[in-house]
C-alpha cells in the first residue's frame, strides 16, 4: 500500500479534502514527472490551492495518498517533506534583510558560515538581486520581493518547488517579466515545479502541462496547446482564451442548423437532431475567403474594440439570434480593410476550426 513504483516524481492518489460539509477536492489522482513544470489552473474556489497545500502537508487531506520519489509522504508533517514554497503575499520576514531571509533555511541545517555566504551569493545572482543583499524587504518592489522569496525557497535545493499564485499581486509588466524568469530558472535547475494560478495566460506560457480544475475536480489535463485547441468542455473553451458559442441542431452528417443557416463541422460524436452548441475562436474567423469550402456567414459590424496588436470586432448576424459574434482581426489587416459600424461583411471559417459540444 505504501509502495508505488513507476517513473513519476510526485504521485497523488485518490486525494480528497473536505472542510465541514464542503468538498474542496474530490478524489483527485495525478502523476508528475521529474523536472516537469505543471500548473493547476482554475477559477477561484476550484480547490487548486487546497490541492497544493495538501501536497505540501500544510492541509491534512481527508482521504488519499501522496508519494514523492515513490515514498509515501501522506502522513508526514510539512517539516519532514522536501519542498520549497512561494506565496502570493511573498511572506518575507520583514525584520530580516534580504540576505538573512535567503539564509534563513540554511542556518538551521548547520551550514558553515562561509558556505552560507557563498550559497546566498549564488542565489542572489540567480535572481539578479546581488546589490540588494543588505536591504529590508520593504525597501524592494513587489517583483524584487517575490524574487527574494523564490531564492529563499530554492536555497536548500528542494526536490519540489511549489508556487501559490506567485505573480497575482504584481503589476502586468512585472508579471510578464517574472513569468519568463521563473520559467528559465526552473529549466536551468530542473526542479520539479507545481504552480497554482487562475490566470490562463500565465499557465499557458509557463507550464509543460496544465491541470484544469473546477469544483474540486480535474476536468482536463494536457499541454497548453492541447488544452487550447482540444478543450473538452465549453467551460474550458471559454475559460482559456475567448470563444463564440452558437446554439445549433445536428441536421445531417457533418452539418448543423443554426436558426436558418446551415454550417459544416465535424459531428462525429452526435446523432441527427441532437441539440448542440458550436464553438469558434474569434481568431479563427476571417473576413476574406481563404478556402473554397469555408462556412459563410453574412453579418453586420456592431462594435469595434481596439486592443493594440489586434482589433476585436463584434458582428450581428440576421440569421442568428442571441449574442454578437467576436472576430479578432490583426491590426495590420484592419488598417488595410477599412471597417465601419453597420458595414455588412461576410464572415468565413473552416470546418476544422468549429468545435461541437453537447448542450
Amino acid at each position, binding site marked *: *500500500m505504501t509502495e508505488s513504483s513507476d517513473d513519476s516524481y510526485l504521485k497523488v*492518489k*485518490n486525494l480528497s479534502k473536505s472542510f465541514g460539509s464542503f468538498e474542496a477536492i474530490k478524489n483527485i489522482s495525478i502523476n508528475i514527472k521529474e523536472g516537469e513544470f505543471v500548473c493547476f489552473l482554475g477559477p477561484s474556489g476550484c480547490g487548486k490551492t487546497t490541492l497544493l497545500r495538501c501536497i*505540501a*502537508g*500544510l492541509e*491534512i*487531506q*481527508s*482521504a*488519499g*495518498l501522496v508519494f514523492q520519489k515513490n515514498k509515501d509522504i*501522506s*502522513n*508526514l*508533517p*510539512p*517539516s*519532514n*517533506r522536501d*519542498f*520549497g*514554497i512561494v*506565496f502570493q*503575499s*511573498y*511572506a518575507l*520576514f*520583514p*525584520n*530580516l534583510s534580504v540576505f538573512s531571509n535567503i539564509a*534563513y*533555511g540554511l542556518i*538551521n*541545517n548547520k551550514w558553515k558560515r562561509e558556505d552560507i555566504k557563498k550559497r546566498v551569493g549564488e542565489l542572489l545572482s540567480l535572481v539578479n538581486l546581488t546589490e540588494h543583499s543588505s*536591504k*529590508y*524587504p*520593504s*525597501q524592494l518592489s513587489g517583483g524584487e520581493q517575490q524574487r527574494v522569496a523564490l531564492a*529563499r*525557497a530554492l*536555497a*536548500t535545493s*528542494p526536490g519540489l518547488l*511549489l508556487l501559490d499564485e506567485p505573480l497575482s499581486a504584481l503589476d502586468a509588466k512585472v508579471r510578464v517579466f517574472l513569468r519568463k524568469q521563473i520559467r528559465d530558472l526552473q529549466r536551468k535547475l530542473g526542479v520539479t515545479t507545481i504552480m497554482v494560478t487562475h490566470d490562463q495566460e500565465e499557465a499557458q506560457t509557463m507550464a509543460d502541462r496544465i491541470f484544469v480544475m473546477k469544483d474540486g475536480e480535474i476536468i482536463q489535463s494536457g499541454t497548453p496547446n492541447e488544452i487550447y485547441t482540444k478543450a473538452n468542455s465549453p467551460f474550458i473553451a471559454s475559460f482559456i482564451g475567448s470563444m463564440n458559442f452558437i446554439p445549433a441542431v445536428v441536421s445531417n452528417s457533418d452539418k448543423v442548423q443554426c436558426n436558418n443557416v446551415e454550417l459544416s463541422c465535424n459531428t462525429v460524436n452526435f446523432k441527427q437532431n441532437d441539440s448542440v452548441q458550436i464553438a469558434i475562436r474569434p481568431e479563427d474567423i476571417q473576413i476574406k475567403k481563404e478556402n473554397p469550402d469555408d462556412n459563410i456567414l453574412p453579418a453586420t459590424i456592431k462594435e469595434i474594440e481596439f486592443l493594440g496588436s489586434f482589433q476585436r470586432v463584434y458582428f450581428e448576424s440576421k440569421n442568428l439570434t442571441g449574442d454578437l459574434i467576436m472576430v479578432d482581426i490583426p491590426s495590420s489587416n484592419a488598417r488595410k480593410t477599412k471597417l465601419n459600424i453597420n458595414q455588412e461583411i461576410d464572415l468565413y471559417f473552416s470546418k476544422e476550426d468549429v468545435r461541437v459540444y453537447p448542450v
Partner: protein
Amino acid sequence: MNFFNFANIRRGKDSSDRVGQFMLVSYIILFLLFLVLPLGALISKSLENKDGDFIGLANYNLYLQEPALFQSLYNSLFVAISSTIIVVVLAFLFSYALTRTCMPFKGFFKLIALIPLLSPSILAAIALVYWFGNQGVLKEMLLGKSIYGPIGIIMASVYWTFPHALIILTTSLSLSDSRLYEAAEVLKTSKLRAFFTITIPGARYGIISTAFVIFTQVFTDFGVPKVIGGNYNVLATDIYKEVVGMQNFQMGAVISMVLLVPAMIAFFIDRYSRKKQISLLTSRSVVFKPKKHFKVDMIMLAFCSLLALIIILMIGMAQYGAIVKFWPYNLNFTLKNYNFEVAGLGWDSFYNSVRLAFYTAIFGTIIIFVGSYLIEKLRINDGMRNLVQFFALMPMAVPGLVLGLAYIFFFNAKDNPLNFIYATMIILVVNTIVHFYTVSHLTAVTALKQMDKEFESVSLSLKIPIYKMFWRVTLPVCLPPIFDISIYLFVNAMTTVSGVIFLYSYDTTLASVSAIHLDEQGEVAKAAAMAMLIVYVSVAVRLTHTIITKKVLRKTQAWRYNIIDTKLD
C-alpha cells in the same frame, strides 16, 4: 484500494507540533485552575448553607426577599445607566472633535483626556470630596444635595471611564471612508443629513460597544461607591459588606452572581457589535480627512477645553489635597501626608503595588502573548485552540470583585493543594493577570493577525521549527504591541482595587487598597497622597515607555523606519 485510503489519515507530528500541543494543554490546565474552577467554587458556594450543605436556590430566595439588597441592584443599575449615557455623549463629542474637525491642539486634548487612565478610580472620588464634600470649595453648587451618594458616584464614574469610551469611539470614528462623504456632497446632501445617514450609522457599533463597556465598568466598580457612596448601597459594596463585614460568604456569592449576569450579557453584546464594526471599512476605502469649518472648530475647541479643564481640576485638586496641612483650615504646604507610618501603614503597601505591577507586566505579557500566538498561528488541535480562545475571552465578562471572591472560595479551601499561594504575592499576580487578560489578549491577536499568515508555512518548508521562528521573527516584529500590553498590565495592576480587595494579606497590602482604608479612617489627605503616588508611578512608566518606543525600538525596528526612508528618496 479506496477503502484503504480512508483509513489512517493521521498526520505525523514534528517538534513544532509537539511543543505546540504541550503548550496548549498547559494553557488549558492553567485556565481551569485559575479561572474556571474558582468560578465553579463561587457558584457552588452560592448554593450552600453556612455548614457547606447543598440547599439549592434557597440563598437566592432569601436575596429576593430582602428589600435592602434588592434596592442595591436598582441603585447599581441607576448609577451605571446614568453614567453610561453621560459618558457616551461626552466622549462621542470629544472624539468627533478629535477625528472629524480641524480643531487646534488635538494632541494636547488627547493627552489630557487620557490622564484618568493613570489613576485609580478612587482618586476621582477623593477629588470630589475636596470639591463638593462637607468642607468642599464648591459645596453650594449642589444646592443642598450631598455629594455622598448617587451624584458623587456618577460624577466620579464619568471621570474615570471617560478615556475608555474615548479610545473605542475615536477608533470607530476614524474608521470612515471619505468617499462616502464625497458621494453625499456630489448628491447635494446637507451636512446634517450626512451626519445622521453616514457618521452615526458608521459609528453605530462603536457607540453600542462603548455603552456596554462603560456600563459594565461602572456597574461592577467597587472603589468609587466605597469612597463617595455614603449610605447609597450598590451591589459591589454589598458584596464587600457581606463578605468582610458579616462574613456571610454565601450571600456574597449570591450577590456576585447577580453582578455577573448583567456583565456577561453586556460582554456578549459588545463582542457581537465589535465583530460588525470590522466589516465596515474595506481596503479600498480612503481615510477621511476633515476640512476646516471655523464655527464648528471653535465650538468644539470650547467644549474640549471645558472637559480638559475639569480633568485637570480633578487631578489637580487631589494633588493639592495631598500636600496641604489641614484642609480647609491650614492651607500651608507639607509633605507629612506622605508619611503613612502615622496611620500604621508605612510605604510597604506602595512598594507591594509596584512589585505587583512589575510581576504582572512581565509574566502577564509573556503568558498572554504566547497564548494568543498558539491560538492564532498553530494549525493543529483546532478543538483545544478554540477552548483556549474561549477561556481567554471569559475574564472580560467577570467583574474583578467576583473573580477575587471566587479565588477566596477556591484557594482558601483547606484540601486545595494550591492553598499555599493564598495570602501571598503569587495569588495577587495571578488574579491581576487573569482579570486583565482579555484586553491584552485581543491586542496581541490584532497584532498577530497583521502578520503574514504564511510565515509559519515558509518556516516549516525550510525545516525551521515554529518556536525558532517565533523567537527570530514574530517576537521582534511584535515588540511595539508587546510593550503596549506590558504597560497596560502595569498601570492596571497599580490602580486596580476590585480584583485584589479580598486577596491581600498583612504582608501584601497594596497602595490602592490602602487609599481606601485611609479614607475609611477619615485620613482623606493621606488617601489622596497614596492615590497620587500611584499616579506618579504610572506617569513615570508611561514616559519611560514613550522613550523606549522612540529610542530603543528604532534599533530593533529598523526595517519599519526604513520604509519611510526609502519612500522619501
